[in-house]
């Protein structure tokens, strides 16, 4: 049994005049990457702030490594828990290394001098996030993705049992998001820490999280492996709204088209997956039992329609979709 890092007992969160959620019971174990997902306004930030000890719970208790988070002194808390926020920080003239070194704050004496161990920890944190080449460079020169890596390294340099990250991928492009998520999963597993992050990136969360905390607006927190939540229909329920629907087959959202036409696809491999995707996007439902068929051929696509005997050849999926849309 892995060590329990964080335990939440009957927690109620919110503000004096506005309760956001009640009766939350959960725990986080070492080595686990947990993604907190929910629509805007469900209270993700409020929950994270409460778990980080930045906001008092309305009721209940949060215990970190067995101690009530409200009773741990600031320095010890900082040695057990670190955070990464969404907002981009401009710290002026610092190198990557100096930024990460600030993370040793809860360990150094009043002068802030880094001991050998501190420096070793900083260097380790820098290389753990794969930022060795960024360490000597001034922050002003770095991209958002590179800064985010260093901010994660800074949080790691605090040597915490739990890291809480508020939308760490918010301002990054897709390859960088994947990179950051993979990095966080690797850190959780290999360094045996618990990592809790909030994200709007459902697809990435489904692929990387060990567990998902699903926070629907005004309802109880639903927790489970990503796949469990998909199969139980929890996602569909949480995100049900007009115009958008969760597709349990692909694990992503799609817009709901009104009148859906049926179409069959014949072919295999990668080409089939993407052909189906293109057709779904155009509003078709893929089913074998229909007269309109798209064949995947050596050098393109053939479309055979129920009413016509001739088949039409197209060189690209764009052309296929355009043709089918008109008909």
């Amino acid at each position, binding site marked *: 049994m892995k060590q329990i890092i964080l335990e939440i007992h009957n927690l109620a969160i919110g503000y004096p005049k506005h309760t956001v959620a009640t009766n939350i019971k959960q725990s986080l174990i070492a080595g686990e990457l947990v993604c907190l997902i929910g629509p805007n306004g469900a209270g993700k930030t409020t929950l994270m702030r409460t778990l980080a000890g930045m906001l008092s719970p309305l009721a209940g208790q949060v215990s970190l490594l067995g101690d009530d988070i409200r009773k741990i002194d600031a320095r010890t808390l900082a040695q057990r828990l670190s955070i990464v926020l969404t907002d981009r920080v401009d710290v002026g*003239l610092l190198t990557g290394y100096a930024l990460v070194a*600030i993370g040793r704050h809860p360990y150094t004496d009043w002068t*802030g001098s880094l001991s050998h161990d501190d420096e070793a920890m900083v260097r380790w944190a820098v290389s753990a996030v794969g930022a060795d080449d960024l360490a000597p460079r*001034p922050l002003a020169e770095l991209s958002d993705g590179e800064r985010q890596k260093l901010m994660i390294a800074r949080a790691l340099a605090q040597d915490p049992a739990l890291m809480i990250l508020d939308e760490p991928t918010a301002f990054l492009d897709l390859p960088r998001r994947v990179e950051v998520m993979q990095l966080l999963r690797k850190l959780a597993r290999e360094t045996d820490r618990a990592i809790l992050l909030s994200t709007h990136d459902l697809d990435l969360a489904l692929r990387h999280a060990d567990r998902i905390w699903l926070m629907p607006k005004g309802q109880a927190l639903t927790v489970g492996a990503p796949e469990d939540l998909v199969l139980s229909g929890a996602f569909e329920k949480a995100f049900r709204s007009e115009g958008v629907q969760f597709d349990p087959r692909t694990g992503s959202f799609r817009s709901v088209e009104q009148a859906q036409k049926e179409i069959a696809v014949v072919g295999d491999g990668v080409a089939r997956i993407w052909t189906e995707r293109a057709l779904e996007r155009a509003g078709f439902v893929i089913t074998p039992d229909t007269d309109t068929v798209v064949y995947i051929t050596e050098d393109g696509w053939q479309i055979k329609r129920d009413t016509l005997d001739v088949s039409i050849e197209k060189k690209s999926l764009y052309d296929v979709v355009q043709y089918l849309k008109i008909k």
Partner: protein
Amino acid sequence: MADNILNPTSQILTRPKAKLNLGIQWLPIGIMLVALVAIFLLVLMLGSVQIPISEVVTVLLGGEASRSTWTTIVLQVRLPKAVTAVLAGSALGVSGLMMQTFFRNPLAGPFILGISSGASLGVALVVLTAGTVGGTVLAGLGFFGDLALAGAAGLGAGLTMLIVLLIARQIRSSMTLLILGLMFGYFTSAMVSILLYFAVPERIQSYIRWTFGTFSGTTWSQLWIFVPLVVIGLIGAFILSKTLNALLLGETYARSMGLDVGRSRIAIIGITALLAGTVTAFCGPIGFVGIAVPHLARSLLGTSNHRALVPATILMGAIVALIATIVAEMPGNQIILPLNAVTSLLGAPVVIWVILRRGNVSKTFAS
């Protein structure tokens, strides 16, 4: 790699260079120290009467200059002035640095919380209304007049500090504090304007002269108060380096790293007020140095690390103040320019040049 990850200390440590643990950058600091000594000697040499460097050194070493007036000039006039300039420049620079980091704003300065406004009001009350209250005219600048001015300014600055600290304990957002400071400044300048409007011209002139600022008004007896206060403040600022570094990331991160933000805020504001208030009390409201010097130090060192910045700002502030003194006195001439005008005339182009060269203020500073 996996091994690396699992065990931080198993990594073979390649220490790049044997760094001195205080984090001070010794080369720029050394250069500035040499420059400081040279300019300090220049201040003792130049003025309405030029004194050769050999004579100055003799006097400093406790000897007698070849003309007895020179000994008096160096010891009684120029040395107190130079010491005042060094400490005032350091104090203003460091308090400006603290305010810029605290508010994460490159335009912040020592007086942003209204400390000089408070001092001005104190002085205005004494200078402009003294006649109607006590019947004695303080406008004649005797020793008593000077000390009364310093006392009034100190009292004004101290009261302002007290109010700001009381408010700072209640308010969580530093932005609100910044706006309150600005409003407080407007309020006190309005009071001063009203006092000026009803005052007689001679009194107004005395008040205006105070606002010009000077390093020459301090005598040895006053330095006994001035020096310890400033030195305590500077030591305090150095102790706060670690706190200031944590605040570079903003208050939320600072708190998450175990910093008691509330207590730090009181300490930073308190020390800023001590430094800026003391300087204003003895030298008048000296503008610009406090805003410009931190920028100069930052771009010279190329870092925002306060462990290095605080000592560099102290030296840079002292150098800038000494240069301003030399220029204000127009060597070889009887004319003395207002110090405040000189600091801005010299400083503004320098700062513009530094910032344009850097291309971006946000790169020379955290904003």
